[in-house]
């Protein structure tokens, strides 16, 4: 069956419905991360008794598709909009249109560079990636070669998770060399194939960082297929998901950063409700991130932000 689409059954809610309708346009919908955001949003929708819909383009390269989704959402005259922009400027005219129609906009995930959104519920990706780099540095003994498998080279999250990692190492770890940065589109098989090529090209590689769920699992897969000893090659990941959690428990992966996607979804809807009610909101809502590894993976606090 189809997973929790309870809230999005009827699109007529906004016009004549009893409940206020909030349209959420995310950057994707197929990945576990976005499904977790959706789950958080639905949780809040239940709690605050509002109607929501949750949509995102097929890939994070599809700016145009996202703009069309935003356009369609506006045409449905919602009470509020939650928006995670793939490109803030590209969405400019539509955001202006929302403002002109007095539809409050709440930004989430990486945010929207504009003063129209009332607030932003997001992870600080630069800081999160730096945290991953710190753990990587510890694991490789502060020297040697490391490589990155990043999910995307043009999206803001891809760039921030790359740059946060790279900048931390450049500033703090003079003896660590970054030998390669490759992009696998978040596709597991493709990421696995390219991680294998990186490992082949650098036999003395000491660590690889995968910047999202698909990239990280791909790296783990590469390590598995090549039979590399996990003790000699540290793998650091991002986000959660069953496969990554298993890899950490099995010792194939050192650890990973997890955001709080459920929190992002929840806070977005909560802020939207507040905005509908005319309340004032803080400029940003930091939903936080966490490092987890074999030592703390079963902690209650961590389990709450992981998803399978």
């Amino acid at each position, binding site marked *: 069956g*189809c997973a929790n*689409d309870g809230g*999005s*059954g*009827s*699109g*007529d809610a906004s*016009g004549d419905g009893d409940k206020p309708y909030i349209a959420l346009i995310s950057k994707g*919908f197929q990945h576990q991360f976005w499904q977790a955001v959706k789950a958080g949003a639905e949780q809040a929708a239940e709690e605050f008794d509002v109607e929501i*819909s949750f*949509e*995102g383009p*097929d*890939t994070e*390269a*599809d*700016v*145009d598709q996202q*703009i*069309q*989704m935003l*356009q*369609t959402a506006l*045409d*449905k*005259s919602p009470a509020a909009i939650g928006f995670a922009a793939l*490109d803030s*400027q*590209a969405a*400019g*005219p539509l955001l202006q249109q929302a403002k002109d129609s007095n539809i409050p906009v709440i930004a989430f995930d990486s945010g929207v560079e504009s003063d129209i959104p009332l607030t932003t519920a997001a992870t600080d990706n630069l800081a999160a990636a730096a945290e991953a780099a710190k753990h990587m540095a510890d694991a490789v003994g502060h020297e040697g070669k490391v490589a990155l498998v990043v999910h*995307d*080279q*043009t999206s803001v999250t891809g760039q921030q998770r790359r740059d946060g990692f790279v900048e931390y190492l450049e500033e703090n770890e003079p003896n660590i060399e970054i030998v390669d940065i490759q992009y696998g589109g978040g596709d597991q098989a493709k990421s696995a194939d390219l991680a294998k090529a990186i490992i082949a090209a650098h036999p003395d590689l000491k660590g690889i960082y995968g910047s999202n769920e698909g990239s990280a699992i791909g790296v783990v897969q590469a390590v598995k297929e090549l039979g590399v000893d996990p003790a000699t090659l540290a793998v650091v990941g991002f986000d959660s998901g069953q496969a990554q959690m298993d890899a950490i428990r099995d010792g194939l992966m050192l650890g990973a950063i997890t955001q709080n996607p459920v929190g992002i979804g929840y806070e977005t809807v909560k802020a939207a409700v507040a905005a509908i009610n005319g309340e004032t909101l803080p400029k940003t809502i930091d939903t936080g991130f966490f490092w987890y590894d074999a030592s703390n993976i079963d902690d209650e606090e961590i389990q709450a932000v992981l998803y399978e």
Partner: protein
Amino acid sequence: MTPTTADRTSAPQPAGTPSTEAFAAIEAGKPRLAWLRGSLQQLLAAASLIVIVVFFSIASPHFFTANNLISILTAATVTGILALGTTFVIITGGIDLSIGTGMVLCGVMAGVFLTYWGWPLWAGVAATIVFGGLLGLINGMNVSILGIPPFIATLGMMLIAAGLSLVISGTKPIYFNDTPEFQQIMNLSIIPGVRFPLGVVIFVVMIVIAAVVLSKTLIGRYAFSIGSNEQATSLSGVNVRRWKIVIYTMAGLFVGLAGVLSASRLSSAQPTGGMGLELEAIAAVVIGGTSLQGGKGSIIGTVIGALIMAVLTNGLRIISVPQEWQSVAVGIVILVAVYLDMLRRRRA
């Protein structure tokens, strides 16, 4: 290319061999009538489109509103313009897979001309369209001089364009901050009060131009002829190579224009994406009844195909069909629409 069994049975030919005069008589009133008959059938071809529109109008009060219909046309504009150019290529029996990423590259080039190099608006736009033509020219030469099969020639171009967009833009979007008028090309409201964007007007103009070129000029005539029987066309003394190059180049000009419009719409040149757009555009062409074997096709069909796709995508969102079901629904509707269209033609 060759008449199918079905065609043969369906072809309505009077028995016997009428005399010359009889032919002359039939001739007298024929072209007009035949044209009427032809366009009536085209209108019938739009039946699926109408059914879909009616369905969504009943399903949601938000669908059949001026604003939403304009949104649909806006959404159809870029794919539609790509599909128009590709129609010519497909009629010759070729294919162009490079239109999606080619369009993205053209958008990036618009950014280079206008933002990096600071050219005036008109020059930047013109240069971008010409650049699209250049991509098409290369495709055309690869196909017709080097003899590389169109699928491969344009697949290569698709990959090259995808890479070059990233290289040239430095993997970052380029914004048109110095030429704020640029975004008006797509977005300017031409009717005060109503949000009727200039881009849609451009789309309509391009439809008319494409239709005229296809039916009234040598380009169209030779496109049909080449797709119908390339060898015979060549033996008739037509310079098939040259005309193929012309046709691919023309398709490239459409790609350039689509690049301008999509960048204008987003007020930025996004260096990624575009991959998959070619399938969407080709689907619009084929749904519109143009044959991938070449020799058969029409502009109005392509427009209907593009509209079917745009209406479906929009309508399913408007009635809030869960996203995972949307592509299932689109797939089924495409199958049914094309099947009904086949039936109609077989019966006709």
